[in-house]
């Protein structure tokens, strides 16, 4: 199937599940950080375990990738500022009660404040592009 259409389909499944499982719910994200509701810890934890088992199973396939290409998984490299960036991301996560995936599900759910988080994310990415002009080590 056409790659773009495939990703539209997988994205739709992802957004649907994020919404149904409460990952796009402001109160549940706050609950995970403040400690009154650990539903999303369960969601993320189950996702990590399932993903890890799934990858081990995939590696046993004769053709782990349908097209027959070899499977090559790149770890993200940490630069000098990466963990500072991760901390900044975390502050945004705790303020907005959303992350880059769940804010999109919020948009689909019609949450108006989620729209502003989304616009903020686009400008935050733009800000990164501007900062990187002057500071290539970012």
């Amino acid at each position, binding site marked *: 199937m056409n*790659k773009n259409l495939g*990703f*539209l389909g*997988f*994205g739709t499944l*992802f957004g649907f599940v994020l*919404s*149904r*499982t409460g990952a796009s719910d*402001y*109160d549940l994200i*706050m609950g995970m*950080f403040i400690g009154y509701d650990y539903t999303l810890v369960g*969601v993320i934890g*189950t*996702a*990590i375990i399932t*993903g*890890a088992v*799934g990858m081990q*199973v995939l590696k046993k396939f004769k053709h*782990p990738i*349908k097209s027959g290409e070899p*499977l090559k998984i790149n*770890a*993200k*490299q940490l630069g000098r*500022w990466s*963990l500072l*960036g*991760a*901390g*900044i*991301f975390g*502050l945004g*996560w*705790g*303020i*907005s009660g959303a992350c880059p995936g*769940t804010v999109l*599900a919020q*948009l*689909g*759910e019609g*949450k*108006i404040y989620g729209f*502003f*988080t*989304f*616009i*903020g*994310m*686009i400008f*935050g*990415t733009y*800000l*990164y*592009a501007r*900062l990187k002009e002057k500071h290539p080590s*970012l």
Partner: protein
Amino acid sequence: MILEIYRVIFINPWPYWAGGIIIGLLVPLLYYYYNTALGVSTGYGNLVKILLPAGKLKWIKEKYPDPWNWRVYFIAGIILGGFIASALSGNAGFTFDMGRFTTLVGWPAIAGAIYFFSGGLLLGLGARIAGGCTSGHSIHGIANLHISSILATIFFLVGGIIAANLVQAVLMGGIW
């Protein structure tokens, strides 16, 4: 019977493991079909190139030669999925409701808009400096046992815990 199945899938909140299993399966599935690592936040660079006058910035020029690639379709899909979920549960439509933020903070909408925009700004900037977000680092990266992603996730959580507890203490009537 059919009504009951509909209710379980489309109306009742899902148990955490049901969502976790499907989200986790996306990691091997995207490799199997498209040899691609699960990740969302990189796609916001596509949106920057499409929506803002940023084509001259070196990073955008080098990293996003074609902004209309699969990442935009993935983003569009997630939005569509959120819409379908809320429409089928009978909650479609625009709303200012944001749970405890709307019930406890009581700010005018314009202040709320600036508040969430600021949060988004930090998410966008932080994700790019960190090299990924909850999906790319925390789910894809940890599922593949990448130390860099485990470290990034620890810092995501530290930031989130600090910010959420500050918001709770300052705006929502004190420490939980």
